């Protein structure tokens, strides 16, 4: 399952999509809006995410297909929030369900790295006195 949404992310609902009787491991990565800026010293007071939505969804689906082909039996959910966020809110949730834990860690890490590298989403940090677009590659 993949999704982009402007609504707050409900983590347990996303985890529920990867449950399966033979799966002994569920690993959930939650990226959270935090106060620390990517650069400089101005505290972040909010975030604004913008997506090239149709391509972002297409790219999420491509990643999903690639990983589930590479690891048969993997259950994978990737959901990204867009729009304005307040601190502490989940930005992205990557949830995997697997028979064993080693695969869970490998697949989860691969999914979030691919998402950050490929899915066309942009982040603007909001400060008390301004804002700045920031990227995953300093």
């Amino acid at each position, binding site marked *: 399952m993949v999704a982009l949404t402007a609504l707050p992310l409900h983590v347990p609902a996303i985890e529920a999509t990867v449950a399966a009787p033979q799966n002994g491991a569920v690993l959930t990565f939650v*990226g959270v809006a935090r106060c620390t800026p990517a650069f400089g010293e101005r505290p972040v007071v909010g975030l604004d*995410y*913008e*997506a*090239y939505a*149709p*391509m*972002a969804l*297409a790219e999420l689906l491509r990643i999903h297909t690639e990983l589930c082909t590479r690891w048969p039996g993997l259950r994978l959910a990737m959901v*990204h929030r867009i729009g304005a966020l307040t601190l502490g809110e989940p*930005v*992205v949730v990557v949830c995997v369900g697997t028979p064993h834990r080693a695969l869970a860690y490998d697949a989860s890490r691969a999914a*979030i790295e691919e*998402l*950050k*590298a*490929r*899915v*066309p*989403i*942009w*982040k*603007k940090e909001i400060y008390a006195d301004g804002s700045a*677009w*920031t*990227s*995953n*590659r300093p």
Partner: protein
Amino acid sequence: MRVLVRYFAVLRERRGKSEGWEELPEGSTVKDAYALLCPPAQLPVGYAINQDYVAGATELKEGDELVFLPPLGGG
């Protein structure tokens, strides 16, 4: 040749619009289009045509949807 260009994030703000049909010379590559539409283009970008990543040397066709992708910030 006309292509639909969408602008996002910092490029949207610099261009002052989120999309527009742009007239380009026949045989233009996506890199050519970037130099033409977003001078001085110091920002390193990726390129997508019709929602798929392409190399800078890819030639555009009439009616393509072209997007310049500033450094990503998702996740």
